[in-house]
């Protein structure tokens, strides 16, 4: 297969079928065994006016970050597409409606603002659709056909995914859509006969592909289902709502239940109640809702009750930027609770990790009897990747609760001291192990006790547990690293893909750079991080927040000050910005 790294955008108004076309491109290219990463943006307002843009990056090697420059733009609405011009590659292909539904005036024209090198493909999307299928509604598929032909993608790939997508709506709909697609394909083939490329030449449908197209939120939902989730309690909030909606559909089928609660406080209360009574339970929210859970999270810490909490971050503070991405809840996740209330915080960096981390979080919560917070963000929740279909082994699904020994019956100590800090946990229904869990400080038996000795020892026990958990938490992972680095880049969450790609590019140019991925935000594998920092002449931490929240957390691990790269643009971290910054740091080093 030839080396491919191709980004295509589709842009239109809500109602133009923009998102559908983007989705078909993703599915088709995934079927073609490419790696695909897609991210859509659509209007924040309900009322359904406004711009929709899809971005699909397609690669023959693993794609880990969003495409920054589009090699192709399919414009379903020229006025809206003008906003994409700054993001086009120099010799970008632009597909537009040469006979658009409404006349395009100069000030709304796309062509008038395109860069000189752009390759322009005018196709009468609407007219072709009307003559092929009797309605202009299929003009988005006509556009897709035109694009496919010019890029040299086998139409069979698209015909297959169109069939799949519309199959449930009946043969007629499928055939109408296929006709629209074909019309565009044939038009391009003939009209642009001498301009056809073969970027995707030897691509074939690879039905045996183990890959599936998933968003972060879908992966989270699947993981919860596979983990045997019994109860989901939640309250709608962007960008976490799709998790609840996914589970509302699939959880009842396996005997579980989704309850939309009255708020986030009751959601976490019910999760604690559910876990206390022996069921796997989960909630998902975003910053404002997460803030409301603060008190009860500390209760989970104190009473040692498991909980799984997804915090799908968005722009903040307060209601903030509900439809924008940001990584600014790290402080709150790690330090948010009054009292010495450390808990487990983990952060996946891609869709596949969304699945495996959430799967793991149930075992972590059960075994260490404490709330586990999973930090995702708008970008990670909503982007799609064609990941190797995730699958949980029996071992990964297994209950990891430490039950009390039969011999401790009738003399059971719920909060028994142990070197690991973990005490056996009985579940209501077990005879002879009755106890009362409490958020007051308590003895090993669970009796309230405020003596200096008890509080000192129990506080230590609770923190010891977290220390013990390190063995079960994913260690920081080095990427493209070496024995010593000029610049060592440390990252977390959805930003990490851009970091890896930036490092990759610079290493290709011969620079001594490397990256460290931190998956376990708390507790930290301090020694591993410290070593990486020590071997890096300069340490750079790029984050989508203003305060440098990861940098604040790990900055003290090495004596040299950390370089920070903080963006609060509401958009994913561009690879080029990191690359540029590393480059600058290298220049300073060279001086």
């Amino acid at each position, binding site marked *: 297969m030839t080396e491919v790294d191709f980004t295509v955008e589709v842009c239109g108004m809500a109602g133009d079928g923009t998102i559908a076309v983007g989705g078909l491109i993703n599915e088709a290219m995934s079927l073609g065994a490419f790696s695909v990463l897609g991210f859509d943006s659509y209007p924040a307002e*309900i*009322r*359904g006016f406004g711009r929709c843009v899809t971005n699909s990056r397609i690669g023959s090697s693993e794609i880990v970050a969003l495409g920054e420059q589009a090699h192709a733009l399919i414009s379903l609405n020229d006025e809206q597409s003008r906003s994409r011009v700054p993001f086009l590659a120099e010799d970008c292909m632009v597909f537009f409606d040469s006979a658009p539904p409404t006349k395009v005036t100069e000030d709304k024209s796309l062509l008038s603002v395109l860069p000189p090198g752009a390759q322009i493909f005018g196709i009468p999307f609407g007219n072709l659709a009307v003559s092929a299928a009797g309605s202009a509604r299929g003009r988005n598929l006509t556009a897709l056909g035109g694009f496919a032909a010019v890029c040299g993608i086998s139409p069979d790939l698209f015909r297959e995914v169109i069939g799949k997508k519309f199959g449930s709506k009946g043969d007629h709909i499928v055939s109408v859509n296929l006709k629209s697609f074909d019309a565009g394909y044939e038009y391009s083939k003939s009209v642009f006969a001498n301009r056809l490329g073969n970027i995707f030449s030897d691509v074939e449908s690879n039905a045996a592909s183990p890959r599936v197209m998933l968003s972060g939120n879908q992966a989270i939902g699947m993981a919860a289902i596979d983990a045997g989730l019994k109860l989901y309690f939640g*309250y*709608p909030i962007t960008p976490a709502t799709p998790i609840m*909606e996914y589970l509302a559909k699939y959880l009842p089928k396996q005997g579980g239940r989704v309850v939309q609660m*009255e*708020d986030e406080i009751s959601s976490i209360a019910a999760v604690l109640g559910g876990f206390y009574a022996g069921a796997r339970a989960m909630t998902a929210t975003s910053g404002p809702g997460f803030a409301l859970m603060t008190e009860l999270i500390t209760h989970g810490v104190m009473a040692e009750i498991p909980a799984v909490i997804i915090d799908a971050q968005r722009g903040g503070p307060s*209601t903030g930027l509900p439809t924008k991405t940001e990584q600014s809840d790290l402080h709150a996740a790690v330090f948010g609770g009054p009292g010495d209330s450390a808990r487990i915080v983990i952060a996946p960096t891609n869709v596949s990790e969304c699945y495996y981390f959430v799967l793991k979080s149930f075992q972590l919560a059960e075994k260490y009897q404490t709330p586990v917070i999973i930090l995702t963000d708008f970008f990670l929740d909503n982007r799609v990747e064609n990941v190797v279909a995730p699958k949980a082994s029996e071992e990964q699904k297994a209950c990891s609760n430490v039950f009390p020994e039969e011999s401790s019956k009738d003399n059971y100590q719920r909060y028994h001291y142990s070197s690991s800090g973990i005490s056996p946990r009985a579940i209501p229904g077990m005879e002879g192990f009755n106890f009362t869990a409490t958020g007051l400080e308590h003895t090993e038996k669970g009796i309230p006790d405020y003596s200096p000795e008890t509080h000192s020892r129990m506080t230590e026990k609770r923190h010891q547990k977290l220390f013990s958990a390190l063995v079960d938490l994913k260690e920081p992972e080095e990427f493209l690293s070496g024995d010593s680095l000029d610049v060592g880049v440390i990252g977390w969450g959805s930003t990490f893909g851009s970091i890896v790609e930036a490092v990759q590019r610079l290493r290709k140019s011969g620079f001594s750079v490397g990256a460290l991925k931190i998956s376990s935000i708390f507790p930290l594998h301090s020694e591993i991080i410290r070593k990486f920092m020590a071997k890096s002449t300069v340490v750079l931490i790029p984050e989508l927040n203003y305060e440098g929240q990861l940098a604040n957390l790990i900055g003290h691990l090495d004596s040299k000050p950390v370089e920070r790269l903080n963006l609060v643009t509401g958009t994913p971290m561009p690879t080029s910005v990191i690359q540029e910054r590393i480059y600058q740091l290298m220049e300073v080093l060279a001086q």
Partner: protein
Amino acid sequence: MKTPARVLVEQVRNIRESGRFAARSNALPTWCPGCGYFGIHQGLSDCIAELGLSLHDVVTVSGIGCAGRYAFFSSTYGLHMVHGRTLPTATGIKLANPRLTVFAIGGDGDGLAIGAAHFPHIARRNINVNYLLFDNSIYGLTKGQPSPTSPVGSKTKASPYGTLDSPLNATLMALTYGASFVARLFAGDPKGITKALIEGIKNPGFSIFHIYTSCVTFDKTFKTWTNLKKWVHPLPKGYDPTDMRKAFDEVLSDDFSMGIIYNRGEQL
């Protein structure tokens, strides 16, 4: 020549000059075309104009939701709060400066789910705040989940097999909490809203305006315009809103009678 466009422009100018638009901000509401909230906006704007309230002596506090956006569409002072906290915020505002006329605005999710703890308490404190509860029986802004007033069996993306929970009745709750002024209104009747507001603002304590309205985008089956128009009707002739027991009877026997349900009749 009078083109339709010119006629429209002239009409708008006339309305502006009449002062009826004064309470509307320059920002056009971002609600969906056909949303019931436009009618409420008209009712409240007209009330402010009719009473001749100085816009700088009026504060509109709104929560989060489509209804919560209201503060941006009003030319009074505005405070767009977090989800569910309009009522205690309004309490702080009113006590800070009793000369202000205070409107609290929120949806059925904002007021009856996440904010449900505050409704009984502002009522029992009888703080002079005018609370407009926009009840469309759905979560609009988050794209159509069931709300505390959705009927049993509501199917949404978040409840694909239908809801199980029985709905709450905000008018009945207001009476139960001892609210001193309770009106039940219909977004399709802006004039009725204006009238009730003018009455309610006179109440020196807590007044609630429970407004049935339609979410045309996410509710295609329950509080549609067609249904609401079919269902709503005025309170019985001769209804006496000062009798609390009668008010309970009315509300327990009829979900759709509109008007001033209860008015303790206090005077400043």
